């Protein structure tokens, strides 16, 4: 099991060599490992399950894989495409039945699993490759990759070309080559080949076990749960990503980094809000007291304004309010900093609309008193810095300002028609 834990370490990001070769990076090595792959396939073909219907299992897997795709709306047209591909592929496979059996043998134990883990398993097979520099984003639509298979015409029997396309569409970030070597050194031998996903990871599991055929059944079970685990983990990463507002890259490090920043920002916001609520409550209590005291004696009312600390109702809220957050969108960027009652807003937007006007309008709405503005045109962008003060009594807070600002400018930006190049 340790092997699988290790592979979990570098799951972060691997694309199989298959993808690599597809991308034309390492096409040459394809043939070398082909023989070793064959050996491997032969080994695995001893799998007792190999006699199940291969095409159906493969088809099932691929369908399930595509069903897993985030854009579920694509499903309906993907599957007919898939089945079409598959039927086309099968003719190539008949020639080499043994190697073809490789596919179902790995897939069958999964077919026994409930569909969901299966999908996930298949989905994440390419994790264990060794590319160090390529990364494919999650969002790459499988639909686009289905149709194109550069190696298809080479008629390589052992790998169903569709799987390569699947690989191409699967999500990844970078790899950690050091970890990978450590975790699946033996499997590394095979990676350069045009492996199908299944064969490849099966290699790993077998390499890890150190034995071959005998443990095939057991290893595939482990390897399936391993895949399942990896898939779950990736889902979690994606879930984390969706919760965080500013997203740029889609690799794990960025996701975690963005999450860290967001958590820090949330902590600042919560602290700020607590302070504001406290101050507000304080102010209300004070005004209530003022009212009751006014009723009692008009003369004393004026002195009550600044109560000394001895007063039990006084909130000891002398802490300085400070808050900072940023919001970025595709064409705009907002940075809001609040210290006590001063709000400093930095605003950058691609030049298209009269941003200054909209921002100024919003600042009025938010009860912010403009003290200074500076900025102008920088290349393609407008960049402005606003120094404002919060009107007394207003309890506007940083995240409200930033969110509304980015909202307004984005909407105005989107609503405006695309401009031709500037006339001046």
């Amino acid at each position: 099991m340790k092997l699988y834990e290790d592979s979990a370490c570098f799951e972060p990001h691997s694309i199989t060599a298959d993808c690599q070769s597809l991308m034309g990076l390492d096409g040459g090595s394809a043939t070398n490992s082909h023989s070793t792959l064959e050996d491997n396939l032969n080994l695995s073909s001893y799998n007792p399950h190999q006699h199940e219907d291969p095409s159906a299992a493969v088809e099932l897997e691929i369908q399930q894989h595509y069903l897993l795709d985030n854009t579920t709306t694509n499903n309906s047209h993907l599957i007919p495409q898939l089945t079409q591909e598959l039927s086309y592929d099968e003719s190539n496979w008949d020639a080499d039945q043994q190697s073809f059996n490789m596919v179902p043998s790995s897939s069958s134990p999964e077919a026994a699993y409930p569909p969901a883990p299966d999908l996930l398993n298949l989905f994440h097979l390419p994790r264990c490759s060794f590319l160090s520099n390529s990364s494919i984003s999650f969002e790459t639509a499988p639909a686009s990759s289905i149709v194109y298979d550069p190696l298809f015409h080479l008629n390589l029997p052992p790998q169903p070309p569709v799987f390569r396309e699947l690989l191409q569409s699967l999500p990844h970030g970078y790899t950690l080559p050091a970890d990978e070597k450590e975790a699946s050194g033996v499997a590394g031998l095979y990676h350069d080949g045009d492996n199908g996903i299944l064969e490849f990871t099966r290699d790993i599991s077998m390499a890890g076990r150190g034995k071959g055929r005998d443990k095939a059944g057991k290893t595939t079970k482990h390897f399936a749960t391993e895949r399942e685990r990896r898939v779950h983990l990736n889902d979690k990463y994606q879930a984390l990503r969706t919760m965080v507002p500013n997203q740029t890259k889609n690799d794990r490090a960025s996701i975690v980094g963005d999450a860290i920043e967001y958590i820090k920002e949330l902590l600042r916001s919560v602290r700020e809000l607590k302070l504001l609520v406290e101050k507000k409550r304080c102010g209300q209590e004070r005004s209530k007291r003022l009212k009751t005291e006014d009723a009692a004696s008009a003369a004393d009312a004026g002195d009550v304004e600044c109560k000394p600390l001895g007063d039990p109702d006084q909130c000891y809220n002398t802490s300085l309010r400070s808050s900072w957050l940023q919001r970025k969108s595709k064409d705009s960027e907002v940075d809001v900093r609040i210290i006590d009652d001063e709000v400093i807003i930095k605003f950058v937007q691609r030049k298209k609309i009269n941003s200054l006007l909209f921002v100024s309008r919003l600042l009025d709405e938010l009860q912010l008193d403009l003290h200074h503005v500076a900025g102008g045109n920088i290349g393609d962008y407008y960049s402005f810095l606003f120094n404002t003060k919060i009107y007394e009594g207003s309890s506007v807070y940083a995240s409200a300002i930033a969110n509304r600002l980015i909202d307004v400018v984005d909407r105005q930006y989107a609503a405006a028609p695309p401009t031709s190049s500037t006339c001046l």
Partner: protein
Amino acid sequence: MDMEFVGSDMTEISITDHRGPSIGRMGRRRVQDDENKEFKSKNLHAERRRRQKLSDRLLTLRSIMNKATIIEDAITYIQKLQKTSDVLSEQLREMEGSSEEEGKPAVRIQIDAAADMKKCGIKEEVKVTTIDGNKLLIKIILEKKKGCFTKLLEAMNCLGFELSETSVTTFKGAMLISSCVQGIYGDSLMVEQTQELLLEIIRSIRECSEI
């Protein structure tokens, strides 16, 4: 936040002599004090050790957490913080209604602005010069009022002026706006016309807020 202070609780650190009764001190009274101090020290040590043990264990716990749980915990924590933030902002919004203080300060500011300006001898002003063919440099001084800048921008937008390099400063109830302006429609702008237009604009802004 609490965890930061585990193991660094300063309140219990005493500056007593930790060497205990082994160091000779004079008199029985001293021995008694030493014993008390010794008990305090032992207690202190014990407490300190306990805290250290706890923090070490928390660190180990964090280090052995696997990736999945870390991510899950992060997700839950973010959700919790978001919920807290929403609750608090909701609370704040509810409290908004009961505040009565807002009306007065705003009015006070405006009245002061006009007075301040007069005191310093700052006058309303509009100055326009051409730069570089189609661009104009405008300088405006007007009474600072709530929303005056927005009104100015609105008016200029309607007239087809686009502000690029802009600088706005406020001083003593006056607002100074220096800006490079170009016409959106590419037409060249006449200096005098622009000057007159702008004067009219700031006049109407002043009158508008005096209503």
